[in-house]
């Protein structure tokens, strides 16, 4: 019995080979960024090539290890401009965006999932369809609303409102699917016991939907952390810039400073990668078990 079972399964050896290859290919750009960041220079090249490079020299230039390890790029990035302040701005905006976005998405998704009311299907369609708007051309109308009408230019609140709102459609869609899979009997039992609607929502439903809420939070955070053009246009003071704006200083225009860009990229990526890893156990369940069924 055991023998035939073993024979029917794939041998793990070649599988590991494929996985290792895939992992190396996936991680190579990350290694590359690290080696440029720690090289202390601004060049794209990992190693300077001599006049007539042989294959060995070229191979050296491909291996992601800097010729001389130096932290000078990191030091320059943090000291030549208020980079720490910019990261703080990004963090504040991202955290509040997440809180606001999750709150708005959860309440709306709960209503769509639990209540039957006229306008329910058109509402869901509207959320889905709004993801298809090409967002690049909304810059001017959004500028008029946020900066001119609401006067929120150079304020983090303006960015928070815009980011939270634009992350709602995807979040509502996902959360609703997840709420759909939570059996209604639990809530009905709580109603019989006399619990209010609010308590049901906060104490019973939300904890059960943790994976989907985690994904929503992650998604809102990432949308906010990575956005560049709105932040660059709305903010009028240097100490209000966010991290992506700061990074763009290094590679725009005519001269590219790859060393600073690489160092800055690593600094900017670490928080979101850590958050991602912390929440990644929810990724699989949150996204699929009912989540993406729509």
């Amino acid at each position, binding site marked *: 019995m055991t023998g035939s079972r073993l024979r029917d399964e794939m041998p793990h050896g070649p599988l590991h080979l494929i996985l290792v290859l895939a992992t190396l290919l996936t991680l190579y750009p990350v290694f590359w960024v690290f080696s440029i960041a720690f090289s202390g220079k601004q060049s794209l090249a990992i190693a300077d090539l001599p*006049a007539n490079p042989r294959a060995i020299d070229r191979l050296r230039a491909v291996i992601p290890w800097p010729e001389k390890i130096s932290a000078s790029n990191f030091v320059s990035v943090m000291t030549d401009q208020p980079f720490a302040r910019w990261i703080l701005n990004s963090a504040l905006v991202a955290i509040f965006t997440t809180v606001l976005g999750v709150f708005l998405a959860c309440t709306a998704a709960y209503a769509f999932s639990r209540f039957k009311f006229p306008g329910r299907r058109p509402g869901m369609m509207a959320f889905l369809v709004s993801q298809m708007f090409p967002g690049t051309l909304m*810059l*001017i109308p959004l*500028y*008029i609303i946020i*900066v*001119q009408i609401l006067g929120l*230019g*150079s*304020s983090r609140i303006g960015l928070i409102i815009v980011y939270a709102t634009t992350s709602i459609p995807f979040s509502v869609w996902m959360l609703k699917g997840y709420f759909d899979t939570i059996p209604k009997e639990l809530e009905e039992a709580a109603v019989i016991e006399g619990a209010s609607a609010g308590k049901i929502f906060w104490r019973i439903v939300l904890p059960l939907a943790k994976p989907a809420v985690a994904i929503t939070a992650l998604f809102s955070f990432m949308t906010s952390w990575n956005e*560049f*053009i709105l932040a*660059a*246009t709305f903010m*009028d*003071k*240097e100490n209000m810039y966010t991290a992506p*704006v700061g990074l*763009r*200083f*290094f590679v*725009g*225009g*005519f*001269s590219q*400073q790859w060393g600073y860009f690489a160092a800055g990229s690593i600094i900017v990526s670490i928080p979101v990668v850590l958050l991602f890893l912390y929440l990644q156990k929810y990724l699989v369940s949150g996204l699929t078990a009912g989540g993406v069924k729509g």
Partner: protein
Amino acid sequence: MESLRRVAAAALTALVAAPATAATEIVVWHAYRAEEKAALEKVAGAYNAAHPNTHVSTLAVPYDAFADKISAAVPRGKGPDVFIYAQDRLGGWIEAGNTVEPIDFFIDKDTKDRFIPTTLEAMTYKGTVYGLPLNYKCITLIYNKKLVANPPKDSDELVAVAKKNTDKAAGRFGLAYAYSDYYYHAALQNAFGGHVFEAGAKPAINNPDNAKALEYLLKWLDKDQILPAEPSTALITALFNDGKAAMIFNGPWFLGEISKNIDYGLAPLPKIKEAGNTPMKPWMTVEGALIAAPSKNKDAAYDFIKYLTDKPAGIVMAVEGRQSPANKAVYAEPKVAGDAVLKSFRDQVEVAIPMPNLPEMTMVWSPATTVMNSVTRHSASPKAALDSAQAAISKDVAGLRKK
């Protein structure tokens, strides 16, 4: 909230410090980094020290976002008092309205005379001056001193020297420049009297002089065979740094990328014999200090930009910011006169032509690149390529003008 606080603060100051007037705030936006940024901030600091009644503050904006930020913020009254940008977007901003303030009224003859005349032209749109020129950039001849003893003065010498240094099999070329980039090709085109627009912003890219210039380029490419086949900027840099390109046409932005082991020299672009011995006339990009139309402190703003384009500030921008100031007097200063690079570009700019600042110019680049690509790859004759570019540009321009 912010403005309310500021108003309260100003009111309080006015009450307490009765005789002294509150300092005028001038906000300046720019897209500089590193040394240029440091030089600009030094100039602003010097101005603030000399003018206690005015406070100039600078804000650096990433280059990629700068133009869009100006277009979004300034017409709505939310922008700076002064901003520094090149002339290529000037026409567009002027036509959009409420963005750039005309300054002929402020300029007196002395101020006008201090600039290299063509730089002031670059800041002029339909007869009105809209900014004071700060600096200029244009391409010139850069050569490898080991391979070229004396830089050529005219096209015959150029071809001779280039041919000596060309060995296609070994990947060595006498002349290498991004000839399929219209900006670089303009230097050759302008020598033949070629142009892009006629009076009234009428596209005229298919005029016979442009065709002649293209045919001349093909002579260098096919007959003299002194140019590489794939002229990407990355390749040109690689060739020059490997010592495989004897001469290149490039601008000040390139100097930072030249490898340390190349001993290079700068010289004015040669004269073209076939164009009646006219020198190659490159396009120049002029960065100007512009005053925002909704600014509340235009007089103070003008005072600052006048200072910024004056000799002392110009020396700081030249020596520390590595810019080429548009102010003629700066070049008399020994520190600047002794700098070979600055002197070379100063000599070159004498024959440079300001790039058109019309809004229609942005519609030219794409069709022009297509022309250069198809002509140099021999998939179209110069006349045919220019004709189709003319059709495309005219269509775009007409689309903009339809009532």
